[in-house]
């Protein structure tokens, strides 16, 4: 199908984008457009105005400072995939990048767009949650940060207000004690996963601390399995699998029961990754 008619404005500044969102109540922001244009083509979405963020300078930087990696919202997936700073300081994000869609889509899709869209089956929202990161947004009242744990509110629903523009995501910079894990089960490379798991922890001697397990494809948002996190910190993988506090619904890919089983399979694989020092 073809999109319903809409107007288009290419914002030159963040303030202009925020103002346009204020003037047009059903305006939508477009960054990479790799999810939005598909929904426009299928007429699942029909805004009166698209505000293009691609002309705003300075939103595509990757910076490491004060123990945090800040990834500008307009950073393309391919930029993150090839970034030395991401590989060194945000290795979980580097690890997941090849699993996201396909080269042609990673060339265009943005990190900020993926987080703001908040697809519950997507990898990056789960990574942000697993890393205990935060989102930086600018709205009419200025700039604010929102913790990942408070950001994902429901199905495609986030803590962003109607006039907020997500400008960056921040994750703690990895150090020698940072452990990460990732795996997903998908029918075909690049497809949305049936179930996936992004995880981080800190090595504490021979034990793990600050275990964060963020499952995706199992609910309305990426979900932390907090009871399993506690069990895994205690070193007991069997107990962690038994404690998996997830109740996935059936979807087109699998039954909820199968997803729950697969979540346990992934947890065992990812637990092994978390227990090994990073090379």
């Amino acid at each position, binding site marked *: 199908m*073809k999109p319903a*008619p809409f107007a288009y404005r290419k914002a030159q500044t963040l303030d202009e984008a925020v103002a346009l969102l204020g003037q047009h109540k059903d305006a939508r922001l477009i960054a990479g*457009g790799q999810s939005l*244009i*598909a929904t426009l083509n299928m007429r699942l979405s029909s805004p009166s105005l698209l505000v293009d963020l691609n002309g705003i300078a300075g939103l595509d930087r990757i910076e490491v400072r004060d123990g945090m990696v800040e990834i500008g919202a307009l950073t393309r997936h391919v930029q993150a995939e090839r970034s030395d700073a991401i590989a060194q300081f945000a290795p979980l994000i580097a690890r997941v990048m090849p699993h996201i869609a396909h*080269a042609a889509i990673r*060339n265009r899709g943005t990190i900020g767009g993926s987080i703001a869209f908040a697809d519950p089956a997507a990898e990056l929202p789960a990574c942000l949650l697993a890393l205990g990161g935060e989102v930086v947004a600018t709205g009419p009242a200025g700039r604010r940060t929102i913790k990942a744990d408070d950001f994902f509110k429901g199905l495609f629903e986030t803590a962003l207000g109607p006039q907020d523009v997500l400008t960056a995501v921040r994750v703690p910079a990895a150090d020698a004690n940072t452990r990460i894990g990732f795996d997903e089960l998908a029918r075909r490379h*690049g497809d949305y996963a049936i179930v996936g798991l992004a995880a981080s922890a800190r090595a504490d001697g021979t034990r793990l601390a600050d275990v964060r397990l963020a499952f995706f494809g199992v609910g309305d948002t990426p979900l932390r399995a907090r009871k399993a996190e506690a069990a895994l910190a205690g070193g007991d993988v069997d107990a962690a699998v038994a404690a998996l506090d997830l109740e996935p619904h059936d979807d087109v890919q699998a039954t909820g029961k199968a997803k729950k089983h697969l979540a346990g399979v992934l947890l065992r694989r990812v637990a092994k990754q978390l227990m090994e020092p990073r090379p």
Partner: protein
Amino acid sequence: MSDTALDITLTVNGETVSERVDARKTLVDFLREDLALTGSHVGCEHGVCGTCTVRVNGDIVRGCLMLAVQCDGATVETVEGLSDSGEIADLQAAFEQRNALQCGYCTPGMLATAQDLLKRAQASRQVPSRDEIREHLSGNYCRCTGYHAIVDAVEAVALARVGGEQ
């Protein structure tokens, strides 16, 4: 001023083009309907099948997931441009020799996507494995060939191009 139709100027296959386009028009529809470049095909129109794959500023993108108005100032290359310049002549010959197409609907996207991998292979002087070729082409559907012949053709060209340079 109406923002539902905008004037854009871009370079398509080496030629400068200036047109007024509807904001809602996707790049691939613009190429096909306004410029009569019908080599780029329209399949699923939501980024899954890959047959609309074209190059924008040197990188492959989905022609159905980019708006024409977003290409103001950009350099766009379609299968017509890749073909006329001779850049993919060896790849096209390999597709023919290996029976890597039957109906041909996916072929323009396959060629653009495969050339993207082959360019990187040449830059790094590494022949991609068959698994790497499959992974790179995993976003392009072919309903005729079963993919084996396509992987054969891309592998043959990678060996010829990288091998030839060593």
